């Protein structure tokens, strides 16, 4: 249950898996993404509403052959350079993309969490997305005859999130912006949660939800494991680092050198933090 991030990734993440490292600007599991790069996992199908820096790193490192997403950018900064290079120039390899809207992706996760084969929404109508995305169909309301958009449930092999706390049993506590993380964990066959701290007992926190230990496969103690994203109550978003990433990721060699030095060249997230100079 409670283990190291190295062992959790080694046990649960395999070549060819479909992974959802979720986080909606808040609580993005960067440390887990780095460990997946370190362990050289390949042919991954990554799923995420808002692929950002850590997905850029996984894509640029050649771990990813397919991406299912709804918004791929560097929030508040601009483009996701490695993602763009993969789509525009197939570097370092061809990246198949399956593109949805946020509402559609959220509906797909919720359907997956609920054990339904699909979800429906008022969406996509009049847009060009259905022309290019085969996982957008329609369903008719048996009562009103209305036509709604239908999207298939998402059920990743592994759901990976970062949270504030876990107790010794492995119950996970999350508060602040919750994004779609609960659904991502519940929709996935296996799940890994990195946490800021592990405590004897979870204190009450306003706005917090708890994921019982029995829906989580592994809990790993990784302080600041969301950096440069943040964990409300523990850290602030490192906006400077996001801006810095734009420069690092623009150039293939600069990117590769950065990954070699700071991720491949470090044993774990603690060493990574020293290496990039964050406390």
């Amino acid at each position, binding site marked *: 249950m409670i283990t190291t991030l190295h062992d959790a990734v080694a046990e649960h993440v395999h070549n060819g898996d479909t992974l959802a490292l979720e986080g*909606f*600007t*808040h609580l993005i599991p960067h440390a887990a993404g780095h460990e997946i790069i370190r362990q050289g996992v390949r042919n991954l199908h990554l799923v995420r*509403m*808002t692929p950002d820096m850590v997905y850029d790193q996984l894509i640029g490192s050649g771990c990813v052959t397919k991406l299912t*997403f*709804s*918004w*791929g*950018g560097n*929030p*508040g*900064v601009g*483009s*996701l350079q490695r*993602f*763009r290079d993969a*789509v*525009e120039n197939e570097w370092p390899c061809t990246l198949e993309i399956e*593109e*949805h*809207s*946020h*509402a559609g992706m*959220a*509906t797909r*996760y*919720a359907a997956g969490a609920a054990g339904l084969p699909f979800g429906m*929404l*008022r*969406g*996509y*109508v*009049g*847009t*060009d*997305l259905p022309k*290019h995305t085969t996982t957008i169909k329609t369903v008719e309301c048996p009562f009103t005859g*209305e*036509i709604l958009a239908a999207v298939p449930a998402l059920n990743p092999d592994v759901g990976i999130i970062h949270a504030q706390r876990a107790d010794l049993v492995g119950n996970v506590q999350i508060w*602040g*912006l*919750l*994004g*779609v993380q*609960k*659904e991502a964990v519940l929709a996935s066959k296996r799940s890994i949660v990195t946490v800021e701290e592990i405590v004897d007992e979870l204190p009450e926190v306003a*706005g917090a939800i708890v994921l019982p230990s029995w829906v989580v496969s592994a809990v790993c103690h990784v302080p600041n494991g969301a950096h440069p*994203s*943040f964990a*409300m109550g523990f850290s*602030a*978003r490192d*906006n400077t680092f*996001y801006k810095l990433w734009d420069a690092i990721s623009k150039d293939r060699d600069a990117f590769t050198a950065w990954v070699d030095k700071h991720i491949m060249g470090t044993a774990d997230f603690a060493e990574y933090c020293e290496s990039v100079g964050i406390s």
Partner: protein
Amino acid sequence: MSEYTTDELMIVNAARQLGALAVAGKRQCFVGIGLPSTAANLARRLYPIEPVLIYESGCIGSKPSRLPLSIGDGELAETSDAVVSVPEIFAYWLQAGRIDIGFLSGAQLDKFANINSTVIGSYESPKTRLPGAGGAPEIAASAGAVMVIMRQSTRAFVERCDFRTSIGFGDGKGDRERFGLRGGGPKWVITDLAVMEPDPDTCELVVVALHPRITREQVVAATGWDVRFADEVAITDEPTATELDTLRALQAA
């Protein structure tokens, strides 16, 4: 009259519109990050009745003291009346029709106010790969009305979008009804040169106001379609010192 940039002009004019809508009882505003968020937060500070800011990260009624860099900044959650999950904000709040104003921007806008934020060029081999749809398609479909804020240029204001990420009026009048969309669609396009609104008869965007000292020629030169002007074209008011000072204080915070 103090000096100001065209971006400030654009933001101030968008804030004025939001303020007028809030006073008219249209308060719930679903805002994207960047220009929309800046204008919406400016309106919160300038007008007696504040717009209710709703962000796709699940924040309802956010009152940030500084401008968020991302829709997920902690500041947004900490200052919200309620924080809900992302599936909930789209299903229970946007889709259910609780949003008065959807406030969008994009990379391309065409003459029927359709928006492209997906690709420049072809989808299969894009010249430029943009971030993608995000929440925009359903905001454009479900919000009671849509306001668009974009810098005007022939690259951005095109005859037809390379990719239709979010629908405005599709190929013209009647398309929204044919598609069964519940939202009212784009009502205002505010640029750094002018204000455009859909022609009631054709739904094509026409210029209804020019910013101070902007000429029709400048607008024509910055528009990728044969842009038309309303019979009466107004001139927007100069930004006031209060508007500019408040905006600058907001951006400096």
